[in-house]
């Protein structure tokens, strides 16, 4: 299937990669700028802005808040998603299709609308804005994803293992802890890491629901008001690095899962 020749293909590919990577490269390179403005000419390399970043208590608190919100909401949505996926795949309650559709619905609604809905609900219930609300918001956006990922790992072949364990006298909790969880563990970890990453990056819901204690995207957002600043580059590069680590882990786990499904 040759529509265009190799030269044009190469040139086009390089231009698109340039377009895709230019902002990221600018971000990372100018985070090592020695002077304040993250624009050419490059005056670094210098770690000055990383030092300033780690000396900025607001930024460090926001980073810690994001880690806590991401971890708690990730554990909650993965836990809820796991129980629901297991319940649907193995016990097949009546109305399973409807249950599945209901749990998946939030995926079709934009975060803006979900965040707005939660903020007027909190208002109506006279709940003050807080990181707790942000955490709840992140649970609801990540639950459908965690549920879908884990459900896709629940394979019928594995049910015989569970039945065998029950026949040998294992109770439901033992079956879950000793058979079900170990078998779908890669899916569970991938769901957690994806939920964590999305929470870590989420802006608009936190914008609606956070008060004085903020998450990292909100803190970076408020720093943007001062315009271009090499410290913001350093913060952005750090966020990028942490997301990459989480995603690399998720990727390795999904590879393990694939190998498992091919192997068995």
């Amino acid at each position, binding site marked *: 299937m*040759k529509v265009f020749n190799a030269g044009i293909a190469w040139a086009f590919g390089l231009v698109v990669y340039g377009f895709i990577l230019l902002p990221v490269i600018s971000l990372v390179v100018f985070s090592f700028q020695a002077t304040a403005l993250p624009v050419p000419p490059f005056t670094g390399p210098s770690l000055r802005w990383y030092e300033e970043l780690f000396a900025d208590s607001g930024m460090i608190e926001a980073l810690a808040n994001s880690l806590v919100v991401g971890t708690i909401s990730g554990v909650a949505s993965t836990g809820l998603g796991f129980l629901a996926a297991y319940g649907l795949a193995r016990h097949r309650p009546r109305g399973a299709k409807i249950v599945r559709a209901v749990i998946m619905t939030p995926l079709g609604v934009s975060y803006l609308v979900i965040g707005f809905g939660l903020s007027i609900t909190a208002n109506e219930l006279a709940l003050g804005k807080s990181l707790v609300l942000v955490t709840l918001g992140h649970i609801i956006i990540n639950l459908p994803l965690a549920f879908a990922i884990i459900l896709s790992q629940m394979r019928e072949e594995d049910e015989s293992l569970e039945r065998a364990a029950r026949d040998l006298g294992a109770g439901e909790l033992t079956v879950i802890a000793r058979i079900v969880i170990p078998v779908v563990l890669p899916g569970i970890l991938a769901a957690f890491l994806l939920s964590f990453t999305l929470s870590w990056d989420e802006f608009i819901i936190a914008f609606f629901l956070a008060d004085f204690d903020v998450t990292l995207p909100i803190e970076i957002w408020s720093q943007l008001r001062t315009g271009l600043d090499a410290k913001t580059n350093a913060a952005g590069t750090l966020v990028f690095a942490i997301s990459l680590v989480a995603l690399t882990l998720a990727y390795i786990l999904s590879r393990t899962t694939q190998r498992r499904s091919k192997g068995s």
Partner: protein
Amino acid sequence: MNSHVRWRGWVLVGPALLVTLGLFAAPMVLVIITSLYRREGASINRALSLDNYVRILTDATIHQALLNSLEVVALTVAFSTLIAYPFAYIIAFRVASKWQPLLLLLTVLPFWTSYVVRSYSWLLVLAKNGVINQTLVEWGVLAEPLAMANTRFATVLAFTHFFVMVSTLTIYASLRQIPTNLGPAARDLGASPLQVFLRVTLPLSIPGVVVGAFLTFVLAIGDYITPQIVGGGNELLLPQLLILQVSRRGDFPLAAAMALVLLVIVALVYAASSKNLTLERRK
């Protein structure tokens, strides 16, 4: 399975269902109810009325924001599809299979910088003293730096950047599902390479194009950050106007009605494209 076990299924599904109802369904119902209230001065009149919807239908500012949003999103869908299609095609058919995963990984790399940071990094590139202007002035291409940040151009460019990544993945997935013997078969029957593309490859890859365009539309139309950071306040898109109602004017009822308008637009687009919304090949 006996009824005891079915009952157990509900216990397992119950928590997720309750969380979904409490944190999603109930707030959505409240958004609908709130959209029927009315702001009067500093207070909210809870008598139900359609006033906010009448305002949305008649208010020129809201029309303009809606129009801006639809235009920006339409341009974004067009540009990202036009760039992503040939790009995905090259990766799928002109690169050895073993390199393809690596190239795709490189394609979505910026996806993992944060949402806020990605918009900010476009500001770095487009600013008056930013990477592009400084380089072009230095090379003598430009005498004066161009005003690129805080324009519609910047919003569309930053959106296109993000959605080229999304559409490349969906189109690539579609292209790879085309049976490899179809092209040579058509060639044997006398089709030219262009005919093979137009009559075989393109029609079979339409699902990938539609899924990518759908995701682009849905995610871009509800986005606040990109227009706010790179587009500036020169022209408002619908999400910006919505946030303005909440943060500046305290007009939650109008904001609720606008949120529902967004929801309905997305639902309509979903209904229009749902026939093609699958990446799996139909038998």
